[in-house]
């Protein structure tokens, strides 16, 4: 069955999964930005690792995604209200990877403030996803394509 889904439309996932993950991300990043210091940086690095796994190994390896599956099973949340292809949320994870990675990098180069600003952008977007389910990738897709197109010229 899973094999069949894979052939037909890539991996299909429960739409609630990414929002659940975004809620945890929001809490982790909010805590990181509030406490900052060593603990904050460790939290940010932890979140960066979560993004890295989900973006590069795929959502089936995502720790938050698997936590959601466990919660769904334990509390019997029932079948998915809808499924969606894996690509869009995986793209968001890649964005998270880039921004938190950029944040950690700028901190290591001494630009601590910039690092937390980048973390704040991811915080805002994950809070948005968790609360509204908005497709941020859809909003920035054309802008990104235009910028890339202009840069290539």
């Amino acid at each position, binding site marked *: 069955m899973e094999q069949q889904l894979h052939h037909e439309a890539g991996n299909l996932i429960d739409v609630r999964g990414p929002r659940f993950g975004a809620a945890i991300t929001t809490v982790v990043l*909010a805590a990181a930005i*509030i406490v900052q210091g060593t603990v904050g940086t460790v939290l940010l690095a932890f979140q960066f690792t979560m993004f890295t796994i989900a973006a590069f190994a795929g959502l089936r390896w995502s720790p938050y995604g698997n936590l959601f599956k466990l919660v769904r099973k334990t509390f019997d949340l029932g079948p998915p209200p809808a499924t969606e292809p894996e690509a*869009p*949320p995986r793209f968001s994870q890649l964005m998270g990877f880039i921004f938190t990675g950029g944040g950690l990098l700028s901190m290591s180069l001494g630009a601590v403030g910039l690092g937390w600003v980048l973390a704040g952008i991811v915080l805002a977007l994950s809070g948005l996803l968790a*609360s*509204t389910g908005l497709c941020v990738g*859809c909003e920035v*897709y054309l802008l990104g394509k235009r910028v890339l197109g202009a840069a290539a010229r």
Partner: protein
Amino acid sequence: MDLLLRAAIVGGLLLVTVALGVWWQRRDGRVKAAAEASARRVGGFSGDQLAEVGLDREGAEALGLLLGSPTCAPCEQVKEVLGQIEADRSSFRWAYIDAGDHLALAREHHVMRVPTLFLIDPRDGRILARTSGVPARRDLEEVLDR
């Protein structure tokens, strides 16, 4: 003190983004009828543009053109709505294009985000309506019945 200040900033940031998100979502899927759609921009789709996106207007009474992206979940929902309408009306034809592959077309029609859907009159390429986000099936059918 610093801790409290940062907590307030984080809380404020979340509040503002969520409020903006809710406002944005409310506008989503609203069908802008022809007058409103064309007041914002000139003209409609030329025959060349319809050919570019692979829409055959021969024998069609209404056309749909959906601009989307590969990483766009709502686009799939719009496709589903269009498929349902198509199953009901043999005179309705639609096409999907990756907006990133048709940047000139997207720019000419001021498409800023995906999914954006155009309902087009096949006779003259006039835009009957446009929507961003996921429109309700009955709202689109209302336009087609006009």
